[in-house]
């Protein structure tokens, strides 16, 4: 039994966190994601499930609170938006290095700097190319609807605990702020302290009982040990690529032209596919749901079928680099996207396909 509600993406994520049995949320207000903590404070999840909610003094404190609770095996969540995520990156690097499970949400706004409070997808590089210091990656989920804002909370925690690694939900101001209907799952019980200890006693710091002491750290002063740690991380990322890649194809079976887009851009590109088909242009869409791992092989294979690819992103051209890497120059790959908080229309996207891919193809052929 699930409950149908009309909610903002940020609110749906917050409600889903309570229902997923999350133990704690630590955050700091920033537009356009403040509804997450506002919703949680209003809902009093401490009364509903015993979930802890705390407004930290900064994004830095919040991510380190996440580090603390995650050290003990608890399910812990934080959310922020672009400038705040920049502040959290030190802590995210520590979470990755110390191999701690946690979920971080970025409701992206335009940048660089203080930028704008309007939607953007300009944090792609930051999300999938490291962001913080050192050899690490984040498992990155990109929701494209309010429903996925809710569903991905549980999915993200499953991955975080499967790999003992931080997971990023990369949303944007559009998905966070817009209202849609959403099916909410039933309440899951939070684990009791005893269950947490039983499940994570091999590594979590919950008090040394009749076992070796558990230590959480990202520090290895001996180079050989540090290299072994990095190799262990790389192994996890390889396993993620093999077992936990997610993507969605839309009208690609007979597609001659392909849009690649994630999150809110995928919603717009999906409409552009329909507009293209109405004009007789056989367009299709590949939507990466995970940005790491990335659907490299899918793109490589699709490149044998299509004549050209347009990467549609609300930024100046970031994911397009991964699309190009994936297709290995088999077909032309171009980028289209508005920035500064402007959201491109399906018509603009179709026009860009015609201008940058289809017409260019005519020029190439003559």
């Amino acid at each position, binding site marked *: 039994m699930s409950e149908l509600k009309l909610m903002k993406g940020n609110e749906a994520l917050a409600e889903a966190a309570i229902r997923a049995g999350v133990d704690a949320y630590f955050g700091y207000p920033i537009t356009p994601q403040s509804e997450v903590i506002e919703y949680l404070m209003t809902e009093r999840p401490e009364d509903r499930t015993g979930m802890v909610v705390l407004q930290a*003094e900064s994004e830095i*404190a919040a991510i*380190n609170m996440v*580090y603390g*609770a995650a050290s003990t095996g608890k399910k812990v969540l934080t959310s922020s938006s672009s400038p705040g995520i920049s502040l959290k990156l030190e802590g995210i690097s520590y979470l990755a290095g110390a191999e701690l499970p946690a979920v971080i949400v970025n409701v992206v706004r335009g940048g660089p700097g203080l930028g704008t409070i309007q939607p953007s997808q300009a944090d792609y590089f930051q999300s999938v190319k490291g962001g913080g210091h050192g050899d690490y990656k984040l498992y990155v989920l990109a929701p494209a609807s309010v429903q996925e804002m809710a569903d991905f909370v549980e999915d993200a925690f499953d991955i975080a605990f499967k790999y003992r690694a931080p997971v990023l939900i990369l949303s944007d101001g559009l998905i966070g702020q817009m209202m849609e209907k959403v099916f909410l799952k039933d309440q899951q019980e939070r684990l009791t302290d005893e269950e947490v200890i039983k499940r994570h006693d091999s590594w979590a710091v919950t008090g040394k009982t009749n076992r070796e002491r558990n*230590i959480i750290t990202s*520090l290895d002063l001996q180079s050989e040990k540090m290299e072994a740690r990095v190799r262990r991380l790389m192994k996890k990322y390889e396993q993620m690529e093999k077992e936990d890649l997610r993507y969605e194809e839309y009208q690609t079976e007979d597609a001659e032209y392909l849009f690649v887009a994630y999150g809110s851009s995928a919603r717009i590109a999906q409409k552009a596919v329909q507009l293209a088909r109405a004009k007789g242009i056989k367009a299709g869409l590949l939507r990466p749901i995970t940005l790491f791992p990335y659907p490299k092989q899918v793109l490589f294979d699709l490149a044998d079928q299509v004549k050209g690819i347009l990467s549609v992103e609300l930024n100046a051209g970031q994911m397009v680099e991964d699309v190009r890497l994936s297709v290995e120059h088999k077909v032309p790959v171009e980028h289209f996207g508005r920035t500064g908080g402007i959201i491109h229309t399906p018509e603009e996207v179709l026009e860009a396909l015609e201008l940058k891919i289809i017409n260019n193809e005519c020029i190439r052929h003559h």
Partner: protein
Amino acid sequence: MNVLDIIKPENQVFCKSKLMTDNTLSYCPGCGHGTAHNLTMEVIDEMGISEDTIGVAPVGCSVLAYDFMNIDITQAAHGRAPAVATAIARTWPEKYVFTYQGDGDLAAIGTAETIHACNRGENIVIIFVNNGIYGMTGGQMAPTTLEGMKSSTSPYGREIESMGSPLKMTELVANLPGVHYVTRQAVHTHKHARKAKKAIKKAFENTRLKKGLSFIEIVSNCNSGWKMTPLESNIWMEENMFPYFPLGDIKVNGVLK
């Protein structure tokens, strides 16, 4: 009497706590960290709370505290231990949570986390070892470096006009209503160590009673960083550090002294 006749368990006054590991301390000979570690572990052992205690190690000389303290420890990013401890105490309210931090960690990069954990009155213990210098990175100026004191980044001595005054974090946090107990101790003599241990015990008792935050500053030496022998550094500490950072209770049971 033969010396071996004297070395018997029943004659032993001081020994290594059972909660200290056999790993060789990474601290310089003469440094106060070893004693501060040992006293903390003795208190936890005597109170019988080791199974319910979670420590938070800092970045600095005591980053490797988890190598020496035989309890569960998580090691925080530089300065963030009070935030890390906050979350542990909030999600495990029946546990004993303490941070062990140096002056660079607590009073410079972690100022915000320290002030706000104190202001919220988190039910944790903060053990703050102040030796007036960045030890691990090789003797740079700390927020607590005294006026005129030389360090590798104040090679002509700390000038107040351009570098500010040494920061009295302990007096600062004592003024916050959420803080229950604030004291400044030392560990360089047996007498001081005994007093410090009492203070640490009181702090963990406060956690048991859910009284809020206890803050213990331990004024200590850094003979390597100060470029002195251990003995010289202890004398220098008494003559120079103690007048600026006077020992004793500052706030007891939520009341300023």
